[in-house]
C-alpha cells in the first residue's frame, strides 16, 4: 500500500520512462513494490542475484540489475538515504564491484581531461585555476577584453531580449530614464561606454544592466518607485556594475576555460557565441557581495556628482526591506537591503554636500503615462 515511489524499474514490458516503485532494503536484498497501476509485480531480489553500478546523468544513481534475457530488470535508485541503507546492508563483494565501477568513472573523466589537456596545453592549467575561482586570473582575462567586444556581446543579448519583450519606444517614461542616464553619464570621466536604456512593459519590479552598457528597466519598477530619484538610484547602481565590468568578470568565471581560450587567441566571435548561449542568463547573473557593495558605493557617489538627490537610492532600499516582510514571495527575503541602506547612509555622510537639482519631468506624470497600476495588489 505504499503510494510514494522512490525508484524506477526498467525492462521489457515496462514503460520507457520506467515503472515507479517503492524499494526497501532488507537483510538479504531489496524488496520492490510497484506503485500505482503497473505491469510490474512485487519482487524480492537477493544480494546474491544482483549486480550493481553507478548510473544516471550525473552518475549519482545506484543501478541494480538482475534476471536474464527478456526478464532482465534494472532499478534506478536516487534517494541518498536509500542508497546509504543499501551500502550498509550489501555484502562487501557486491560493493567492491561498485567501487570498481566508481573508479572506472573517475578514470574515464580523468582521461577526458587529459585529452582536453593535450588539445589546449598550458591553458588547461589556467582553466582549472579559473574553475576553482582564482579571481586574479578572472581579472587578468577581463582586463584583456576590449570594450568593443564587451559592447558587441552585450548588444547581441540586449537585442535578443528586446525583440521578445514589449518595449516602450517613446513617451514620458523613456524620456525620464534617458534624462537620468545622461545626467550621470556626463559625470563619468573617460567613460568608454555609450549607455542605452530601454523601458520594458512588465509588472516585474526589477532592472538590470548587461555588459557594455545596455540597461533594461521594467515598468513594474517605475510604478513602485515613489520618485525619479529612486529610479535614478537603481540606474546608478546598475551603471556602476557596467563601469566596473562586473558582468564580464562573472561571465569569464562561469565560462571558464573556453572564455579564456577565446580571449587568448583573440577569437571575438567565439566569445560572443559563448555569451549568446548564456543568453538571458546573463541578466540573471548574481554578482558577488563585494561587487554589490562596490556598485552601491560608487553608485551613490555618481548620484552625488550628478547632483541627483542620493537619498532616493537609500529610501528605495529601505522601502524594499519593509515591503519584504509582507511580500516574501515577490522579492524573496533579503535582510541585506536594510544593512545596505545603513552602509549607504554612512557613505553619503562622508560625501561633500551638494545641492540637488531636480529633474525636468514630474514623476507623477511619468507614472501616469504607464497606465493603471497593476502591481498594486
Amino acid at each position, binding site marked *: 500500500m505504499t503510494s510514494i515511489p522512490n525508484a524506477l524499474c526498467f525492462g521489457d514490458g515496462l514503460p520507457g520512462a520506467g515503472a515507479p516503485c517503492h524499494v526497501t532494503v532488507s537483510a538479504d536484498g531489496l524488496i520492490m513494490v510497484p506503485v500505482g497501476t503497473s505491469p510490474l509485480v512485487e519482487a524480492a531480489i537477493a544480494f546474491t542475484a544482483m549486480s550493481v553500478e553507478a548510473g544516471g546523468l550525473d552518475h549519482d544513481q545506484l543501478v541494480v540489475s538482475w534476471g536474464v534475457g527478456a526478464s532482465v530488470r534494472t532499478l534506478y535508485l536516487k534517494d541518498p538515504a536509500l542508497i546509504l541503507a543499501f551500502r550498509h546492508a550489501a555484502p562487501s563483494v557486491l560493493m567492491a564491484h561498485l567501487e570498481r565501477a566508481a573508479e572506472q568513472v573517475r578514470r574515464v573523466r580523468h582521461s577526458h581531461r587529459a585529452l582536453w589537456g593535450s588539445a589546449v596545453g598550458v591553458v588547461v592549467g589556467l582553466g582549472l585555476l579559473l574553475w576553482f575561482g582564482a579571481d586574479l586570473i578572472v581579472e587578468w582575462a577581463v582586463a584583456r577584453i576590449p570594450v568593443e567586444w564587451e559592447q558587441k556581446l552585450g548588444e547581441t543579448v540586449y537585442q535578443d531580449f528586446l525583440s521578445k519583450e514589449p518595449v516602450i519606444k517613446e513617451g514620458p517614461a523613456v524620456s525620464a530614464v534617458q534624462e537620468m542616464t545622461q545626467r550621470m553619464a556626463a559625470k563619468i570621466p573617460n567613460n568608454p561606454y555609450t549607455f542605452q536604456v530601454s523601458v520594458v512593459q512588465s509588472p516585474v519590479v526589477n*532592472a538590470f544592466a548587461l555588459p557594455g552598457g545596455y540597461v533594461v528597466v521594467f515598468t513594474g519598477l517605475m510604478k513602485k518607485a515613489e520618485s525619479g530619484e529612486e529610479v535614478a538610484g537603481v540606474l546608478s547602481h546598475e551603471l556602476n556594475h557596467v563601469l566596473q565590468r562586473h558582468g564580464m568578470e562573472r561571465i569569464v568565471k562561469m565560462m571558464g576555460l573556453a572564455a579564456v581560450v577565446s580571449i587568448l587567441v583573440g577569437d571575438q566571435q567565439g566569445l560572443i557565441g559563448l555569451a549568446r548561449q548564456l*543568453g538571458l542568463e546573463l541578466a540573471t547573473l548574481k554578482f558577488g557581495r563585494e561587487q554589490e557593495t562596490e556598485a552601491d558605493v560608487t553608485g551613490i557617489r555618481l548620484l552625488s556628482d550628478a547632483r541627483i538627490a542620493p537619498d532616493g537610492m537609500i529610501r528605495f532600499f529601505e522601502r524594499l526591506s519593509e515591503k519584504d516582510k509582507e511580500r516574501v514571495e515577490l522579492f524573496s527575503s533579503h535582510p541585506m537591503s536594510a544593512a545596505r541602506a545603513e552602509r549607504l547612509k554612512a557613505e553619503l555622510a562622508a560625501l561633500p554636500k551638494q545641492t540637488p537639482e531636480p529633474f525636468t519631468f514630474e514623476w507623477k506624470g511619468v507614472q501616469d503615462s504607464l497606465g493603471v497600476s497593476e502591481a498594486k495588489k
Partner: protein
Amino acid sequence: MKSEILYPGAFPMVRVYLNEGETVKAESGAMVAASPTIDIESKMEGGFLGALSRKMLSGEKFFFQTLRASRGAGEVLLAPTVPGEIVLLDLDGVNEYMVQKDGFLAGTEGVKIESKMQSLTRGLLGGEGFFILRIGGTGRLILNSFGAIHKIELKPNEEYIVDNSHLVAWTSTTTYNIEKASSGWIASLTSGEGLVCRFRGPGVVYIQSRNPGSFGNWIRQFIPVSE
C-alpha cells in the same frame, strides 16, 4: 488541479483548471486567457532586486509567471509561442526530466524547476544552451516543441543519436555524450552547430520534428536586407 490539451496538433493550447488557492507556473507570455479569479505574479531572478535576494545561487527560470487562483476557482489557457505539439508529463516524485530551455511551457504546483549549469564539456558543446532545466517534484509538467514531439524509449544500455537542436527533454536516468564537432574546435564549441548527442538508456528522450535554428535561417532569406 486538472489540465488538458485543446486542439492537439500544430496549434494546441492547454487548459488548466485551478481550485481556489492553487497555482500554476508558466513561461512568461504563455497565458492566453484566464478566469477573472486568477491573478498573475511575475517574477525575474537576478537583476537589481535579485541581487538583494538571500539565496544568491538559486536557480529559478529567468522569466516565468505564477498564475494563482486567489479569488476562487478558475481556469487558465496557455499556449507556446512557436507552432508545435504539447506534451503533458506526470511527475511522481521519483522521475525527473532534463528540459531544454525553450521546451518548458508550464508546471503545476509541486513541480520543482531548477536551472542546471551543464558540466564544462557538455555545456559548451551542447547547442541546447549552457543551462538546462532540471524538473522534478510532483505534479504535471507541460512541455512544448517546435513541430511534432516524438518520443524515443530506450532500454538499458540502448543508444540513440539525436541532432542536438532537435532535443526537447530527456529523463535523468539517461546519460549522454556530445559527439562530432564538424568545423573547427572553437567554431563548433561556440555555435553548437553540427553536433549530436549520443543518448544511452534506460529512459525516454523527447525530440522535436523541426529545428528552430534552421527554420530561422530559412526565413531569413525572405527578409529583405535593409542598409
